[in-house]
């Protein structure tokens, strides 16, 4: 046993080190659809402009056929007392934080799916229900979903939500970047309704240029960082603010490595076209045969 397990163990150890050391994230190819297009779009959120009117929440619900209520009911500011997260009844929410730079006007931060360039959910989903589309949006096919919630475990922004109170057909829900609307040439519902143009929709590469320019023009107004430019390998949604949004915990502090990178390298290393499992099989079969033969000869004598 000792001998065998040690062999096994060296094999796996060697495999793991080899894969962790080599092949970085370039192997991240899931379905053919998951190709990063140069023209992919995004949204630039300028939190210095946002007034916290929550019209985007209403528009989002309307666009996704969720119970939305009256638009004027969204003027209620008491919801800001608690930190809210997107869930199956609200795919985007605005939270209010203390503004460390301008004490009298609060800091409003809208959150929704970031539509990562290298999405963890796409990589994690057991049935491949998620996909990254050419325009940058990360959408999913509810008909495939088995409700395992691994996407929720994987997502670095903790975005996908689940209908826990439904016994039959509970759905995973999150912002879909208004995939149907944008395909028809419309703007995402939240961008369209925003009264102060805090949300700018356009090609991601352009948005980064615009963001840079804004920071350059108003270095006193802006904190010099475009959140989402490099976080987890880049996201379609980008944030500008007058302060570090990760400090207020409005957004999580993340490094630039893509979320599924390490996991996928390990996964493909262990499998690598089934060569390692097949050779392990052959090795074990060899050991078994030798041991059996040894036994037979010793009995024969």
């Amino acid at each position, binding site marked *: 046993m000792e001998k065998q397990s040690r062999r096994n163990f060296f094999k796996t150890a060697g495999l793991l080190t080899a894969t962790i050391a080599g092949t970085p994230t370039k192997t991240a190819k899931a379905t053919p659809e998951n190709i990063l297009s140069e023209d992919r779009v995004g949204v630039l959120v300028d939190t210095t402009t946002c007034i916290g009117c929550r019209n985007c929440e209403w528009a989002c619900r309307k666009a996704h056929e969720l119970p939305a209520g009256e638009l004027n009911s969204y003027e209620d500011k008491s919801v800001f007392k608690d930190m809210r997260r997107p869930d199956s009844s609200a795919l985007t929410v605005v939270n209010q934080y203390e503004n460390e730079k301008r004490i009298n006007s609060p800091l409003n931060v809208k959150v929704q799916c970031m539509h990562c360039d290298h999405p963890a959910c796409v990589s994690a989903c057991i049935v491949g229900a998620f996909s990254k589309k050419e325009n940058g949006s990360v959408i999913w096919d509810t008909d495939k979903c088995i409700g395992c919630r691994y996407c929720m475990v*994987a997502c670095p922004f903790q975005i996908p939500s*689940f*209908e*826990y109170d439904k016994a039959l057909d509970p759905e995973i829900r999150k912002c879909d970047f208004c995939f149907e609307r944008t395909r028809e040439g419309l703007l995402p519902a939240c961008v369209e309704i925003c009264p102060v143009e805090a949300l700018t929709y356009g090609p991601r590469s352009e948005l980064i240029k615009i963001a840079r320019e804004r920071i350059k023009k108003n270095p006193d107004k802006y904190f010099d960082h475009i959140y989402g430019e490099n976080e987890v390998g880049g996201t379609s949604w980008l944030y500008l603010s007058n302060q570090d949004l990760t400090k207020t915990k409005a957004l999580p502090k*993340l490094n630039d490595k893509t979320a599924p990178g390490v996991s996928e390298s390990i996964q493909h290393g262990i499998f690598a076209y089934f060569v390692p499992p097949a050779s392990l099989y052959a090795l074990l079969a060899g050991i078994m045969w030798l041991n059996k033969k040894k036994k037979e000869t010793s009995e024969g004598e």
Partner: protein
Amino acid sequence: MSEYLKPVPIQKKFFTPGVIVLCIVAFNGLVFLAARFLFGIGSVTNLDNQYPWGIWIGIDVAAGVALAAGGFTSAALGHIMYREHFHSIVRPALLTAMLGYTFVAIGVFVDIGRWYYIWHPLIMWNGNSALFEVGICVMMYVTVLYIEFLPVVTERFLGKVNFKGFLSLLNKPLEKLLRILDKTLTKTIFIFIILGVVLSTLHQSSLGTLMVIAGEKMHPLWQTPVLPLLFLLSAISVGFPMVIFESMTASKSLGLKQEMEVLTPLGYTIAPLLGIYLAFKIGDMFIRETFVYLYELNTASIMFTIEVVVGIVIPLRMFLSKKVLKTPSLLFTASALVIFGVLLNRINNFVVAYTPPYSYGSYFPSIGEISVTVGFVALLVLLYRIIVLNFPVISLPDKKFAIKTKYTIKG
């Protein structure tokens, strides 16, 4: 010695006070399970959008797979290393693995929101997903375990098919079928035995890969790229302690002699395996310099310390002592500690280490979740009892041989 041991159905009545307690526990679990299917996962569990996975994944699935590792480690020892001395432990270990994995599959079935689509991964593939790999491997391995167990069934019924009345027409064809099955299995079983070991090494490690994608959401004491290796090593090291634990419990419950002549030599293999696991665990901690997190006093550091000290270091020291290996009560304690350590490790990895970026509040399993988990364990034990009472699983000294040889160890 093993030549004189023969697997037989154990002659013993099913109901005892302990069995009745188990039945109540199992029933209680089934009540909460019914609620889960009638009113949804949220009605029974404390899970939410921040904590999508709880003990049903951490214990029922992850720990369940690890603790069923006795199946593949003893198959490797008994059949691949061909140590005939250990043949008597292979069947009980196989049965535990078979039941263990069956309940892992049921655990998954219960936890996923759309249980009626559990077959989707069979036709909808995502090669990037660690969960897909685990899912497919576990499905294949469950099948292999059932095939490996088939000889026990054919052995039980071969030459004993005896239906009364009009069903007696079936007797001959059934007997023939069993004979063909038995013959084919004898010739091909080695294919499945090796396949079982390969599949086990694959999914035991991939289970570790599962949490790697959670990245910074997982506490650095556990989050490491060598997680799959640690999972594999811990599974290998918990395999034999589980076999010992289960053999001793079964012997006690069924009023049989403890099989110390097999369990003591088996115990010798545990210390080196545990040692390798500990070396990698500590090595990983020093390479990534995560020991700094042990200086702070919080749930994570306490749980990690208990896991390593109580679950690895103490049993490792115990298994190095000959006295422990030869004393049934100490051997049992040491094995139980290893099992506790691996169980805690899986809970730590899947539940304790997981901290979502926007957690308001933390996760603690609900009464419903605990009831279902404990109920499944009770059901598993009950099924184990039913099967060993009716099928040739546990080996007893064969009287025919016992007369010929001096059977002195009996006592």
